[in-house]
């Protein structure tokens, strides 16, 4: 190939490899309205399905009369649990080892539960038909408050489990109990508390919220009776797992099921699980013989398909009087709703909540989690976090602030005193994890300097004095958060989904002309994989990123992978990509040696090809090698240049960061103004800094929403109140603060390119930063803990309780 002579820098730059702010490939279609989302897909003879949902949170179903609906022109079918029973599909397994009613089987357990699936020619007629279906209920007593769930006389919420006092995760203590999960050394921890100089204890509630991606959950199922093949387009963060589940449930052989996740309009954990809408669409297409589309509306999305958190964490820390932590004891009451549809790896009913020791060197700790049923929507998904990691980070980061307040210590100084030190990595935590790498002191010191932390504290002190003198009605809060995440599930030794180990995969194929198609088991929902995965390959193989096409989401063509959630794509699929590329590179080296008539060991890699050591003019570019691999491969070597890698990570990765929030609160209105928010992230090697910063902005905005008002609320009858964007707080551009971002780089020692993952860090670290800022503002008035969410009304109420309105 004739090419102009260019410099090494130009050769490097044109690759657009790792570390460069490559503009996104996806944007070309998205900015022109040419994305291809599920609801954009049409098939010939396609019809629509939608649900009749329960008005009540807990009721027996006495009768369902669909006769009027069935008589409506345009209505094709109405499915109820009775229709699914012969197929054994009226219940489905959940990822958490429980079962969930696909269509209510004799009773409903939460408001808006699916009762019947109406199939009609268009979405307007399904809506008409839903109005014509009469459901007769007999109301039952309702349990909304998880603290009442295990009362001796609490109503039985799940009669289907009657007599089954052993669940998927061990013994059940009560008819509404799901599991108890404990870890840590209880007696050593109890002893630490008995002998401690200082202890603190607080019940920290992390309220119920919802991932609410802008595109709701949806699918389009089409069964070809002649071929016996099922095609399902859907909003799937884990399309391969969905295909396996669909095969196990439908008994259609897995190779005859084509699951395709096209462009996805945000996921944030909402689109991991299998939902009734998917099952009903599949049954409906098999029954009717025509393609069936199901599209949730926003109310259905917020009130049925998964929720997040509802974790109530009684947190205790023991310490010496000079502020060295000596023990951590946490008990969690976990509300999973009517069915345990938590999307965690199978053996982890409380996710990775045992990362709750955070960034601190706790000599001992104990954690116990009790999961309970209530008459609320099922779930417990990881909303922009690894499994229960945002709960754990909130627990420890609020806990450290509460301890600092009791000790009269500065919360940043308390953290600096207790951080795991750089030389302690790899670090064995008291609750069983091996942290891969970290440099917490460097990150914290950089962050404190960047925001002039000491000066802010001095300003806060002056403001507090002015407030006491009656000169201002504004108080100032400084929220500190130093989080450690655990992401990249995960090693097959401890992580699986329904028995499938949580590896991930990549397949890279170089064409004769040196361009590439690569496919992965991950699935982008906005993360920009088509851009960043190509950057990894570009650096590894010396082929420009623009010559590399990335494909994900088609289970027929992509290698099997466990999907994208829990920040696992970069730690697992990203590693698979690098490993697959290295297999190709090894073969390329053999071909280059053959072409240059030297030993492979005489060659060295140089940006975009191999050159002879000590004789750099003699070289072969990857493009030349690619052509040769199809044209004149060395004798005895297979032609072609492609590789597959299934990567089973040896460990999780542990990203961390230091976040600071500076807030001014008007005590008379409860309005909190974010003056500054600074986020330092260490996600190891940075693949595309532009995309990292973008993810940090987005995650911080979600953290801001959750901490400052976003909530799925229920009244005492189990009515979900506020399941629309009128009430459910999604910040607009006006409320959203300005974000300042920064970073340090501590590569993961076990990851092929040292990357750790970042998409969820800002949510994990952001929530405690906001909450700590609110609590920090009120601390000098005698407050120890104010529960989230901190909307203006609740902040005003907190101020009122402290007597500042008198």
């Amino acid at each position, binding site marked *: 190939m004739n090419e102009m002579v260019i410099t090494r820098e130009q050769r490097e730059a044109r690759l657009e490899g790792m570390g460069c702010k490559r503009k996104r490939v996806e944007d070309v279609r*998205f900015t022109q309205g040419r994305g291809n*989302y599920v*609801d954009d897909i*049409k098939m010939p003879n396609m019809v629509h399905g939608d649900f009749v949902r329960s008005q009540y949170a807990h009721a027996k179903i006495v009768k369902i009369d669909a006769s009027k609906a069935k008589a409506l022109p345009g209505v094709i079918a109405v499915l109820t649990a009775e229709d699914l029973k012969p197929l054994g599909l009226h219940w489905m397994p959940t990822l958490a080892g429980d079962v969930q009613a696909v269509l209510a089987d004799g009773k409903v357990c939460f408001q808006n539960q699916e009762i019947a699936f109406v199939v009609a020619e268009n979405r307007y007629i399904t809506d008409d038909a839903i109005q014509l279906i009469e459901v007769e209920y007999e109301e039952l007593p309702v349990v909304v408050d998880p603290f009442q769930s295990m009362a001796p006389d609490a109503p039985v919420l799940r009669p289907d489990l009657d007599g089954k006092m052993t669940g998927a995760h061990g013994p059940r203590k009560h008819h509404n109990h799901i599991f108890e999960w404990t870890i840590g050394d209880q007696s050593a921890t109890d002893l630490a508390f008995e002998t401690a100089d200082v202890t603190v204890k607080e019940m920290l509630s992390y309220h119920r919220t919802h991932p609410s991606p802008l595109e709701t959950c949806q699918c389009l199922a089409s069964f070809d009776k002649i071929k016996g093949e099922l095609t399902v387009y859907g909003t799937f963060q884990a399309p391969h797992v969905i295909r396996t589940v669909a095969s196990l449930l439908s008994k259609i052989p897995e190779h005859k099921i084509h699951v395709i996740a096209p462009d996805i309009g945000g996921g944030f954990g909402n689109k991991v699980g299998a939902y009734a809408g998917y099952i009903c669409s599949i049954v409906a297409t098999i029954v009717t013989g025509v393609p069936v589309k199901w599209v949730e509306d*926003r109310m259905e999305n917020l009130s049925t398909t998964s929720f997040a958190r509802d974790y109530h964490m009684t947190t205790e820390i023991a310490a010496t009087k000079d502020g060295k932590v000596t023990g951590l004891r946490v008990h969690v009451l976990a509300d999973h709703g009517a069915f345990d549809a938590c999307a965690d790896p199978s053996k982890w009913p409380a996710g990775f909540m045992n990362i709750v020791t955070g960034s601190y060197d706790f000599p001992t700790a104990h954690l116990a989690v009790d999961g309970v049923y209530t008459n609320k929507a099922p779930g417990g998904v990881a909303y922009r976090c690894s499994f229960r990691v945002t709960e754990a980070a909130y627990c420890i980061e609020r806990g450290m602030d509460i301890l600092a307040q009791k000790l009269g210590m500065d919360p940043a100084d308390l953290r600096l005193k207790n951080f795991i030190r750089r030389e302690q990595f790899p670090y064995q935590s008291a609750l069983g994890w091996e942290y891969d790498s970290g440099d917490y002191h460097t990150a914290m010191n950089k962050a404190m300097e960047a925001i002039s932390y000491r000066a802010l504290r001095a300003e806060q002190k002056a403001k507090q004095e002015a407030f006491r003198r009656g000169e201002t009605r504004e108080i100032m809060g400084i929220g500190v958060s130093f989080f450690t995440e655990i992401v990249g599930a995960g090693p097959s030794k401890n992580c699986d989904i329904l028995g499938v180990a949580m590896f991930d995969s990549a397949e890279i194929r170089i064409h004769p002309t040196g361009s590439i198609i690569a496919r992965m088991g991950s699935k982008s929902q906005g993360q920009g994989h088509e851009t960043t995965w190509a950057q990894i390959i570009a650096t590894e193989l010396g082929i420009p990123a623009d010559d590399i096409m990335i494909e994900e989401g088609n289970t027929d063509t992509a290698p099997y992978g466990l999907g994208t959630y829990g920040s696992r794509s970069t730690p697992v699929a990203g590693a698979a990509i690098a490993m697959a590329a290295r297999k190709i590179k090894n073969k390329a080296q053999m071909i280059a040696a053959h072409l240059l008539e030297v030993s492979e060991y005489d060659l060295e890699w140089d940006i975009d090809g191999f050159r002879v050591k000590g004789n750099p003019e003699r070289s072969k570019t990857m493009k030349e090698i690619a052509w040769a691999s199809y044209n004149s491969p060395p004798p005895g070597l297979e032609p072609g240049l492609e590789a597959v890698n299934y990567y089973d990570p040896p460990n999780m990765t542990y990203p961390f960061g230091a976040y600071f929030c500076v807030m001014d609160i008007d005590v008379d209105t409860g309005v909190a103004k974010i003056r500054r928010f600074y986020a330092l992230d260490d996600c190891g090697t940075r693949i595309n800094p532009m995309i990292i910063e973008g993810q940090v902005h987005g995650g911080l*905005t979600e953290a801001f929403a959750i901490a400052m008002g976003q909530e799925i609320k229920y009244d005492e009858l189990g009515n979900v109140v506020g399941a629309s964007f009128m009430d459910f707080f999604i910040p607009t*551009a006006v409320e959203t603060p300005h974000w300042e971002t920064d970073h340090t780089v501590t590569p993961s020692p076990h990851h092929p390119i040292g990357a750790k993952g970042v998409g969820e860090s800002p949510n994990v670290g952001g929530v405690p930063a906001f909450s700590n800022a609110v609590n920090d503002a009120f601390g000098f008035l005698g407050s120890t803990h104010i529960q989230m969410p901190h909307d203006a009304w609740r902040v005003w109420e907190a101020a009122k309780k402290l007597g500042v309105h008198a």
Partner: protein
Amino acid sequence: MSDVQTYPVTVTVNGKKIQRFVESRTLLIHFLREELNLTGSHIGCETSHCGACTVEIDGTSVKSCTMFAVQANGAVVNTVEGLANSDGTLHALQEGFRQMHGLQCGFCTPGMLMRAKVLLSENPDPTEEEIRHGIAGNLCRCTGYQNIVKAIQYAAAKLNGRTYQEAAE
């Protein structure tokens, strides 16, 4: 459903005159997406909160999930599919969104672009605060808006013959 009553609608969509018969209750967003196969405009809430369905009608921004197709009779409707320049090059906003990393999942983007187009026609050189208020009817779950603001500033600069200096963060 042959006996359902329909009404004639004539609209100019992206410069092309369209005539169809529709039910009176057909929402404009469904008309655009399902009748005309213009699937760029999206549905995020059906209650006018999210703005993913925002289109331009007779020079103003309209959330097409809360307007009936029959109400658009006689109107000039522009959607994201018609945003690029007539010579096929990208509109300054489309370019700005890519350059400034103003999108991630892309679902809010068409509505955001069409809202920004009208915003810039009403206020060709808005301040950051004016942009933030100007797009407050459009929700984004991915970006935190910071780079969307920059993308609109980039486009405003370009349309005013200036070069935008800042980089995407």
